[in-house]
């Protein structure tokens, strides 16, 4: 297969993968039936009245990424730069998600004006589970063992290459790649910890059911985190094995790597689909509950409110930087570190 054929395959795959997400987002406002519009309790006849326009507006906004993507795609193909199609797919995927959040936010804001007054009030009573939960409770020792052995083998392989291979440039690049993989593993562990410690206060009605679904979702999400970590681990080893046995492998190795990458993308998409299905199932079965929330965000440029686990908060006058939240600061530092590592890798590859 030629490179152009690979790119066409990637684009077709991205279209096929995005179609179910579009369908899911199309029906998302009415996921819980006609009594709810997203998480807003809709009054009777809402969808026949003002809700119709809000729903139509929301659905039209879902097509904005496609309206931008198609002309850009045509321009890239006509101008003879098909390689940039992969970047177009990646950026459109991100933009589609952000566009969905914005469309949903706007639709909910408009629908909130018609919300029944009693439904808009937050509950005054909530239930708190006294079941202790730590990341250790959601950890599989076998998974951790396999990962530890994989990375030990990867570093040993890099050490072997350093001692024997004349291509030190490649060795350094593989070392950088392995460090990046370790960094990503740490990031996934950080995410797993955040999933486990996510707030789990429950409404006073249907408490058991609510908590049971939250627990099932938590278990599933941590399982996905571990699966992703397991999926990433062989990638490092395969790269090193290819580098060590490169002379023995023919031209078919490039095709094998590309096929492997494509397989990894398919499995990632499957994980994402399962994750979305699980979230939707929980959303369907639990009614949104307005629990007593966090206090109001101050309207300064910088705030020191550790209760918000977000680095950037939206306040009355714009955006606020929360410098007091330890998880938010850690996440910010992690992203900065990741960018730094990527720059280093690009520098090594040059």
């Amino acid at each position: 297969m030629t490179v152009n054929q690979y790119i066409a395959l990637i684009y077709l795959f991205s279209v096929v993968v995005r179609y179910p997400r579009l369908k899911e987002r199309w029906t998302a406002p009415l996921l819980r039936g006609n009594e709810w519009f997203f998480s807003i309790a809709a009054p009777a006849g809402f969808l026949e009245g003002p809700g119709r326009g809000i729903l139509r507006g929301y659905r039209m906004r879902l097509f904005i990424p496609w309206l931008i993507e198609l002309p850009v795609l045509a321009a890239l193909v006509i101008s003879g730069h098909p390689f940039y199609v992969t970047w177009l797919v990646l950026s459109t995927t991100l933009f589609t998600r952000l566009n969905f959040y914005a469309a949903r936010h706007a639709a909910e804001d408009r629908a909130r004006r018609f919300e029944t007054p009693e439904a808009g009030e937050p509950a005054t009573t909530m239930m708190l589970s006294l079941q202790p939960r730590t990341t250790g409770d959601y950890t599989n020792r076998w998974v951790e063992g396999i990962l530890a052995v994989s990375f030990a083998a990867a570093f040993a392989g890099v050490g072997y290459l350093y001692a024997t291979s004349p291509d030190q440039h490649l060795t350094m690049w593989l070392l950088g790649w392995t460090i990046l993989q370790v960094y990503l593993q740490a990031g996934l562990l950080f995410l797993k910890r955040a999933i486990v410690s996510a707030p789990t206060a429950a409404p006073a009605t249907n408490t058991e059911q609510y908590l049971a679904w939250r627990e099932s979702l938590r278990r599933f999400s941590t399982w996905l985190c571990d699966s992703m970590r397991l999926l990433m681990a062989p990638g490092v080893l395969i790269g090193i094995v290819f580098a060590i046995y490169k002379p023995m492998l023919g031209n078919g190795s490039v095709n094998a790597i590309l096929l492997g990458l494509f397989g990894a993308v398919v499995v990632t998409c499957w994980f994402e689909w399962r994750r979305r299905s699980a979230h939707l199932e929980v959303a369907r079965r639990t009614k949104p509950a307005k629990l007593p929330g966090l206090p109001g965000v101050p309207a300064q440029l910088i705030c020191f409110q550790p209760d918000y686990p977000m680095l950037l908060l939206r306040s009355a006058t714009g955006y606020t930087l929360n410098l007091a939240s330890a998880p938010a600061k850690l996440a910010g530092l992690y992203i900065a570190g990741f960018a730094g590592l990527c720059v280093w890798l690009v520098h090594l590859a040059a």
Partner: protein
Amino acid sequence: MYGVYIHYTVLLNINMDDRRPLYQQIADGIRTLIASGQLSEGQALPPVRQVAGDLGVNLNTIAVAYRELQDDGLIILKHGSRATVASRTAGKHNEEELRGSLRTALTQLVLAGMPLGRILEMVNDELGSMMKGVKA
């Protein structure tokens, strides 16, 4: 892999309209759960960080509640390990001290203008529901 995990967990009721401060509500709630036997001896309590995260409050609020329970001899706090429910016989209050607490509670009911019969009925109800989970 994905299914509903039903675990019968012990639940603490928090009321935002309650006039008591939040740490007091938490301490009183755990006290009631221990008294009723829903939290048994040796059972682990969630870490301070978890409760604070669930309620979206400061760590100190929960730490104060836990310390109050520790001072009452109801829970054991050890640095680096989970808080656990203490032995019911390990309470360090003597009878006179406990009688004082009972007197204070009864005084509030009398001052609220409740008739004697209603107070007795209320005490019996509370005691009955509290002792349901207690093993003889």
